[in-house]
C-alpha cells in the first residue's frame, strides 16, 4: 500500500511543469487559442523528444517503456497548462488501437503520427447526426478496406494525420485506420467553444483504410480506450482545477475591497477552501483510476468512470468559483480563466454526463 509517486515520476512532473510554463505562458496560449489553426504545431516534435508521445510505448518501438501512470502525470500537467494539440486524441483515444501495429507505435513515439478516434456511439453524435442515423461502414477491397459514412464531434479532427475509425463491417464493429494522406475524408471543423480542442465532422466516401482490429478483438480495445480516455480527462480536469484555484487564491490575496484583501472574507476564502478540497478529492480519484488503468485492475472501469464524473464537475466548479472570486474581471475575454472554464466544460461533456456516469456506477452497486 503505497500511494506515492517514485522520485523519477516526481521529476517527470517537475520537468513537465517548468517546460510548459516557459513554453506556453498565459499570453502565448491566448494567441494560440485565437489563431486560425488553434495549435502550435512546432510543439509536437518537442513533446515527442521529451518522451511524452511514447511514454507507454515499448523501448523496442522507440518509446520510453513506461506506463499509464507516467502518461497520467503528463495529462495533468498538460491540463494545467491548457496545452492545445492532439495529445489527448493521439495518446488516450488512438493509441490502444494503434498498438495493433508496431510500425504505427514507432511513428507515434517519434512524433511522426498524430491520430484521433472516430467513435460509433450514438450518444457522442450531434442531434443532427443522430437524426440521420449516421455511422461508418467498412467494406473489404482486396487487402484494404473502404470506409463510407459520417461521424461527428470528433476531437481534433482538423489536426491529426490519421483517424482510428469504429466502423461496422460484415461481422460487427471493427477498428480501422484511415490515414489522411491517402484516405482524404471530408472534414468539417466546428467553431468549438474551447478553441484549443475543436470538434469536427468526418465524412468518408469509399476512402481507403487499413484494418487494425477485427470485430471480436475490437470490442475489448474500444472498452479499454474508453477507460484510458476517461482517466486521462479526469487528470486533465485536475490540472485545470488546480490552476483555476491558484488564480483564485492569488487574486483573493491581492485584490482589496473595503480596505482589506478579499481573501479575509469567508464568502471568498471558504469558497476557495471548497475548491481545494474538491480538487484534492478529484486528484485522489484520478490517481486511483490511473493506477487501475496502468495495472488493468478489475476496478479500472468503475474507477475511470467515477474519476471522470467527479473531476470534471470539480473542475467546472473550480473555474466558476474562480470567476466569481475575480468579479467582473473574471468574466472578461482577456483574462485566462474563461479558457480554463471552457476546457472544463468540454471535459464534462465528453462521453456522457456525470449523471449518466453515476447511473453506470449505481447499476453496478444496486444490481450487483
Amino acid at each position, binding site marked *: 500500500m503505497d500511494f506515492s509517486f517514485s522520485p523519477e515520476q516526481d521529476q517527470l512532473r517537475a520537468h513537465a511543469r517548468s517546460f510548459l510554463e516557459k513554453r506556453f505562458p498565459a499570453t502565448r496560449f491566448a494567441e494560440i487559442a485565437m489563431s486560425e489553426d488553434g495549435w502550435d504545431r512546432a510543439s509536437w516534435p518537442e513533446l515527442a523528444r521529451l518522451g511524452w508521445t511514447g511514454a507507454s510505448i515499448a523501448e523496442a518501438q522507440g518509446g520510453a517503456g513506461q506506463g499509464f501512470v507516467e502518461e497520467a502525470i503528463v495529462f495533468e500537467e498538460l491540463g494545467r497548462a491548457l496545452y492545445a494539440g492532439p495529445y489527448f486524441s493521439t495518446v488516450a483515444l488512438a493509441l490502444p488501437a494503434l498498438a495493433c501495429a508496431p510500425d504505427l507505435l514507432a511513428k507515434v513515439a517519434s512524433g511522426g503520427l498524430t491520430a484521433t478516434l472516430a467513435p460509433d456511439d450514438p*450518444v*457522442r453524435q*450531434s*442531434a*443532427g447526426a443522430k437524426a440521420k442515423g449516421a455511422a461508418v461502414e467498412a467494406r473489404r477491397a482486396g487487402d484494404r478496406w473502404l470506409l463510407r459514412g459520417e461521424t461527428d*464531434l470528433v476531437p481534433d479532427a482538423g489536426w491529426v494525420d490519421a483517424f482510428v475509425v469504429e466502423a461496422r463491417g460484415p461481422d460487427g464493429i471493427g477498428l480501422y485506420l484511415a490515414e489522411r494522406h491517402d484516405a482524404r475524408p471530408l472534414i468539417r471543423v*466546428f*467553431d*468549438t*467553444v*474551447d478553441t484549443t480542442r475543436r*470538434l469536427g465532422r468526418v465524412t468518408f466516401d469509399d476512402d481507403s483504410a487499413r484494418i487494425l482490429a477485427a470485430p471480436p478483438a475490437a470490442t475489448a480495445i474500444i472498452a479499454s480506450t474508453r477507460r484510458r480516455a476517461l482517466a486521462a480527462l479526469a487528470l486533465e480536469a485536475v490540472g485545470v482545477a488546480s490552476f483555476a484555484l491558484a488564480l483564485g487564491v492569488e487574486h483573493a490575496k491581492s485584490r*482589496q*475591497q*473595503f*480596505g*482589506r484583501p478579499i481573501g479575509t*472574507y469567508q*464568502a*471568498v476564502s471558504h469558497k476557495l477552501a471548497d475548491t481545494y478540497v474538491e480538487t484534492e478529492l478529484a486528484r485522489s480519484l484520478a490517481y486511483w483510476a490511473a493506477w487501475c488503468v496502468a495495472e488493468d485492475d478489475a476496478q479500472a472501469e468503475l474507477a475511470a468512470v467515477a474519476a471522470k464524473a467527479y473531476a470534471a464537475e470539480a473542475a467546472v466548479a473550480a473555474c*466558476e468559483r474562480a*470567476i*466569481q472570486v475575480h*468579479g*467582473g*474581471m*473574471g*468574466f*472578461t*475575454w*482577456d483574462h485566462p480563466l*474563461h479558457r480554463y*472554464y471552457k476546457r472544463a*466544460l*468540454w471535459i464534462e*461533456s*465528453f462521453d456522457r*454526463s456525470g*449523471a449518466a456516469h453515476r447511473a453506470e456506477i449505481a447499476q453496478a452497486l444496486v444490481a450487483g
Partner: protein
Amino acid sequence: MDLRDGPEEAAFRATLRTWLAANVPAELRGLRGWTGPALALGRAWSKRLAGAGYAGLTWPKEYGGAGQPWRYQAVYLEELAKAEAPQHLGVIGLGMAGPTIIAHGRPDQKARYLAEILSADDIWCQGFSEPGSGSDLASVRTRIELVGDHFVVNGQKVWSSYAHIADRCILLGRSAVTGEKHEGLTYLVVDMKSPGVEVRPLRQITGEAEFNEIFFTDVAVPKENLLGEIGGGWRVAMTTLSHERGTFGFALAGALDVAVRKLVALARERAGADALVRDRVAREWIELQALRYTNYRALAHLERTGAPGPEGSVAKLRWSEANQRLTKLAIEIVGQESQVADGDGTAAYWRYQQLRSRGNTIEAGTSEILRNIIAERVLGLPRSR
C-alpha cells in the same frame, strides 16, 4: 388578497399584449449588443414604445409620466418578457437617471433632461463601478475638480452598459480625497460627446461586448450639471441604486419564465423520460413561482409604503443562481454538441445563455454583497467588514 388582475390591470395587460403582438419586429427578437443595424432597430423600437405610452409608466404626470401605480410597471415588464421583446434602450434613463433627477434635480435640470429620456431621444448610461471599486462603491477614485465654472473629470469607469451608444452618463466621482470616504463624493451628469470621453467595449467570455469601459481625460463638465451638492454624491447615488431595485424583480422573473418554458420544451424533446432531468426542471419551475409570488408580495409592500423592501435583493440573488443552474442543465441535456458554437439553433442558443449566466452573480451587485445586505439590513447582524 387576490392574485388575479383587477379589471383595470386586466385591461392594461390585454391592450399591451395585443400591442406587442402587433409591434415587436421579428428581427428584434433575441437581438443583443446594439451595434450596427441592431442599434437603429433598437432606437426605433424604443421610440415606438415611448410613442405608445409605455415609457415612464410610474413617473409623475407633471414630468410627462403616466402616473400609474407600480403594478402597471410590473405588468409591463411581465408582458415584455413574455413577448421576448427587447428592453427600451433607455432603461437607465427611465429607471435610474430620471427618478434620481426627479428626486434631487433642480427645476432647470428636470426641464432639460426628463422629456428626452421619455421620448428615447437621449440614451443614458451609468458611470459608477471602477476597476478598483466593484463592490466597494464608496472607494471610487475618478477625480472631479471644480475649476472656475466647470468641473474637470479624470478617471476610468467600467461595466457600463449602453455607454457605446449613450448620450449622457450619470457619474459618481471623488471631489475630496481627505475625510470620510463617503463624504468626498460628487454626482454629475456628463455629456458623452464631450471631448476627452472615450468608450471601449469590454469583450466578455461569450465573445461579445455588452459592457464598456469609459475613460475620462480632462473632461470639462459645466457646473450646472451637478446633481445634489458637491460632496453630497453618496446620497444621490443611493437614490439611483434604490430605484434599480424597485420592480427589477419582475424583469428577472419574466426572463426566467421564458427560460423555464424553453427548458421544458428542450427536456420534453430530448430527455422526457429522464427522472433526474425532470426533477431539476421541476425545481426551476418551483423557483420561478417562488420568485413570481415574492415579487407580488414586494409589489404590495411597495404600493403600501412607497419604499422597496428587501425582496429586490432576494429576487436578484435567487434569479442569478437559478439562471446558472437552468442553463447548465440545458447544456447537459444538449450533450457534447453544446460545445459547438455553430451548431443548430438550440445548441448555440443554450451555449450562449450558459456562458452569459456566469455574469449574473457578479453584475448589479455580487451575490456576496447581496447576502451581506440581507444579513445586515434585514436580519440586523453586525457588519462583516
